[in-house]
C-alpha cells in the first residue's frame, strides 16, 4: 500500500493522507468508507469529533451469537454511501469540528471511575448499541450528594452538558473502558481536566469517545456548572462566555497522532501495523 503524505496549507493546517486502497474504519458504530481516490483524512477525522446532537440511527443488531445470525451486522455494508471529494466540504464542516461548544459541568479532583460509572452498571457491554445508550444514561451517577446538580436528569438518556471540566487526576481508578464510553454515550464531547489518570486517558484516546484535553491552570475552580464554554482545538484554548475569561490548553502530546488517526485501530492501519479492513 502506497501512502503519500503531504502538507496542505489549509487554514486549519492539518495533514492529509492519500490512501491507495480502500480503508474502512468503524468507530462508535459509524461506518466510514473511503473511495480509492483521494480522500481527506482531516475532514474525516473531524467528522469523528464533531458531535451533532442528532445521532445517526444505527441498525440494532442482536447480540453476537455464533448460532443465530447469518449476516454480520458489524461489518461495513457494501452499499454504504461513500463520501466523494470531501475537500470541497472541508470549509463548511471544519468550523464545527475543531470547536466544541456547549454548557459545562464542573467536577473536582480525583474523580474516579466508580463515580463516573458505578460498578453495578458494568454488566452493560459497551459494544452492544442498546446497552451503550443505557450506559450513557448512568454517566456520573456515582458522584456524591455534594454535587447538587445532576449530570443527567432522571429519566433522561443524554446529558445537556457537552463539556466536563475536571480537576486533578480525572478518571483515576479502574481500567474499565465503560468510564469514557459512558461519558461519550451521554453526549460529552470533550473533557478538560488539570491532569488525567493514565488508563482513563488512554481509553479515551483509543475509543475516540471523548476528547481529553489538559488545561494549564485549574479551570475547575474558576468555572461553574452551567457556564457556556467554547473549546477551540486549533488555538488550544477554552473560552468561558459566561465569565468572559479565556484559558490556555495544553497541546495533546503523544496521543496526537492516534487521535488524529481516529483511534488505535485507525492509527495501526495507517502505520501499517495491521492490514486495512476490506469491505
Amino acid at each position, binding site marked *: 500500500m502506497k501512502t503519500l503524505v503531504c502538507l496542505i496549507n489549509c487554514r486549519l493546517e492539518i495533514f492529509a493522507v492519500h490512501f491507495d486502497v480502500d480503508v474502512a474504519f*468503524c468507530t462508535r458504530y459509524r461506518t466510514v468508507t473511503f473511495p480509492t481516490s483521494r480522500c481527506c483524512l482531516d475532514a474525516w477525522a473531524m467528522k469523528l469529533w464533531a458531535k451533532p446532537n442528532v445521532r445517526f440511527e444505527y441498525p440494532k443488531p442482536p*447480540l*453476537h*451469537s*455464533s448460532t443465530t445470525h447469518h449476516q*454480520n451486522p*458489524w*461489518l461495513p455494508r457494501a452499499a454504504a454511501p461513500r463520501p466523494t471529494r470531501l475537500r470541497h466540504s472541508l470549509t463548511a464542516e471544519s468550523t464545527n469540528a475543531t470547536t466544541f461548544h456547549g454548557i459545562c459541568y464542573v467536577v473536582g479532583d*480525583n474523580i*474516579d471511575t*466508580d*463515580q463516573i460509572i*458505578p*460498578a*453495578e452498571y*458494568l*454488566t*452493560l*457491554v*459497551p*459494544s*452492544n448499541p442498546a*446497552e451503550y445508550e443505557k450506559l450513557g444514561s448512568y454517566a456520573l451517577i*456515582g*458522584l*456524591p*450528594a455534594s454535587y447538587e446538580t445532576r449530570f443527567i436528569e432522571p429519566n433522561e438518556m443524554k446529558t445537556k452538558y457537552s463539556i466536563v471540566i475536571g480537576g*486533578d*487526576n480525572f478518571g*483515576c*481508578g*479502574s*481500567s*474499565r*473502558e*465503560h468510564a*469514557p464510553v459512558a461519558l461519550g454515550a451521554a453526549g460529552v464531547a470533550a473533557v478538560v481536566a488539570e*491532569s*488525567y*489518570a*493514565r*488508563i482513563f486517558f*488512554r*481509553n479515551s484516546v*483509543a*475509543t475516540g469517545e471523548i476528547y481529553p484535553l489538559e488545561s494549564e491552570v485549574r479551570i475547575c475552580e474558576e468555572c461553574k456548572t452551567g457556564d457556556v464554554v467554547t473549546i477551540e482545538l486549533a488555538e488550544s484554548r477554552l473560552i468561558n462566555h459566561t465569565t468572559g475569561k479565556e484559558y490556555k490548553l495544553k497541546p495533546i502530546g*503523544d496521543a496526537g497522532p*492516534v487521535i488524529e488517526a481516529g*483511534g*488505535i*485501530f485507525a*492509527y*495501526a492501519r495507517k502505520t501499517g*501495523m*495491521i492490514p486495512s*479492513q476490506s469491505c
Partner: protein
Amino acid sequence: MASSSSFIANKKDLGVSAFSSTSSPFSIPKCRKSISKKIVSVMAPQQSERKPATTGSVKIAMTMTEKILARASEKPQLSPGENVWVNVDTLMTHDVCGPGSIGIFKREFGDNAKVWDREKIVIIPDHYIFTTDERANRNVDILRDFCLEQNIKYFYDIKDLSNFKVNPDYKGVCHVALAQEGHCRPGEVLLGTDSHTCTAGAFGQFATGIGNTDAGFVLGTGKLLLKVPPTLRFVMDGEMPDYLLAKDLILQIIGEISVSGATYKSMEFVGTTVESLNMEERMTLCSMVVEAGGRMGLSLLIALLSSTLRIRHLCPMNQFIVISKQGFQMCFGLMIAILFSPSVYEIDRLRLLLYSLLVETTRREAVGFALVVIYVFLASRFLSEYRLDISKLEPLVAKPHSPDNRALARECKDVKIDRVYIGSCTGGKTEDFMAAAKVFLASGKKVKVPTFLVPATQKVWMDVYSLPVPGSGGKTCSQIFEEAGCDTPASPTCGACLGGPKDTYARMNEPMVCVSTTNRNFPGRMGHKEGQIYLASPYTAAASALTGYVTDPREFLQ
C-alpha cells in the same frame, strides 16, 4: 535442551571473562582478578543483526521496566517516553470487560477473525459470578461462546453457580488465579483488562491494565502501542516488624506520593524489607500500584530467586526456558557490568547469589534468568528514589475517601465500624487469611461486628480449610474464624470489593463504616455512595473486628 557447549563463549569475540559451569561449589573469589580467571562467559546464540556493541545494554543500563519492554518490542535500547509497539506475551480478560473487548475484536477484525494466539489469552470470569443478575450471567456465556469458537486454551469457566466447588475449571479472582496457574512469568509482558493487573509485577514482569479497545486490538494482533514509563524506585530497608504487612507498606507509599504521584511511571520495590516478603506479600505490594497512578510495580528479588526457580507451580519449566533464551541476550552487558562496576554492596551479594544459583541448578536457563534479573540493579537510571525505613513504620489505614488519605491505625481508634471485609486480590490470599487468623488466635475472643471473608480463589478457599495456622496446635484458618464468630468463608470471587450487582455478598447497600483489605475506597466503591471504607492490612482488619473500632493490631499481637 542442548548441551552446555553453547554455554561457553567465544572469548575472542567478546573479550570478556566469564563464568565456568564446572567451577567448584562455594568457591567465592575474593578479588576481581581471580574472578576473571575462573569464569566463562555466557552467551546467546549470535544473532546477525544484534552485535554486542549495538545492543546498547553494554553502554547504558536500562531499568527492568525498560529492559522488558525492549525485549518485547525487539529494540536494543529504550528510554522513558518512547512509544513502542510491544509484543504481548499474555492477555487476560474477565467477565466485565471481556464481552466488550470481544465485541470490538469482532467489529474491527471481522466476524470470522481468529485471535492472534489461542494459548496466550487467559479468560477468567471472576467479578460478578454468584449473582442472579441476568446480564452478569449472560456476560459469562458470551465469554464461553467466544472461547469455544476460538478454542481458547485457558478459560476458567463456571457453569454451576450454586456451588463453586463442582466447577473444576473455575478459579476466582483473576490476578491471584494468573499467579497460581503459572501465567505470571518474569520478563514477560502481561496485559489485562483490569487495573489491578499490575499485581503480576511482583513476578518481575511488565503487567499493566488496559481498556476494551486496546484489548480488542491485542486479541487480533498480539501487539500494543505502549509508552515506556520512567521508573520510580522505592528502597525499603529495615527489619519488618511482626505487626506490619505489605499492605501497610504500600499505604505508606501511596500516602507519600498521593494518588497521582506515579502517573505514567513504573514503581520498583527493592531493599532488604522487600527481600524478606514472600510472593503473596509482594503481590499485595504491587497490586496497589495503580492506586498511586502507577503503570506497573515491580519487585525483583535476588534472595527469592532461587526459591522461585524451584516453585514449579508458579513457573512451569517449559515456559521458563523460553524466557531465559531472551535473558541470554542481556548477558553481555551483565558480565561487563558486574566486572567493571564499582564495588557496591549489592554487587558482592549478587555475585554470591549467582554462584549459589549455579550450584543449585545446572540449568543454564535458570542462570540466564537470574542474570536478567540481577542486571536491573546495576547503574540503571531512575526518575527518583524514595527510601523508607520500615522498622519505624506503624500500622496504617487509608481513611475515606481516597487511598492516599493515610492515617495511623491507632489515631483512628475512635472510629466505630459496622463491618469488616477480608478479601479481594489485594487482601484475600492465603497469607492474608493466615494473618487474620493469627490475630484472632492471639486474642481468643469473638468479633464484635459482622466479618465477611471472601477467599480470592478456589485454592485459597481450600487452604483456609486445610492449612494449619502456625502456633494454633493444628487448627485451620476456618476453625479459628468459626470460633471467632466470623461469617463462613464465601465463594471465591471479587465480591464486594467493587460493589457489583445488588445481591453481591457483603455489598454495602446502606451507608456504613467498613474496614476492608481491598484496594480502593472512593465514594461508592463497595456499593453505597455514603459508605465509608477504611483500607487496612489483614492484621488491622482482624483487630478492628475484635473491638468494633478501628484498632491497631499491636493490641493483640504483642
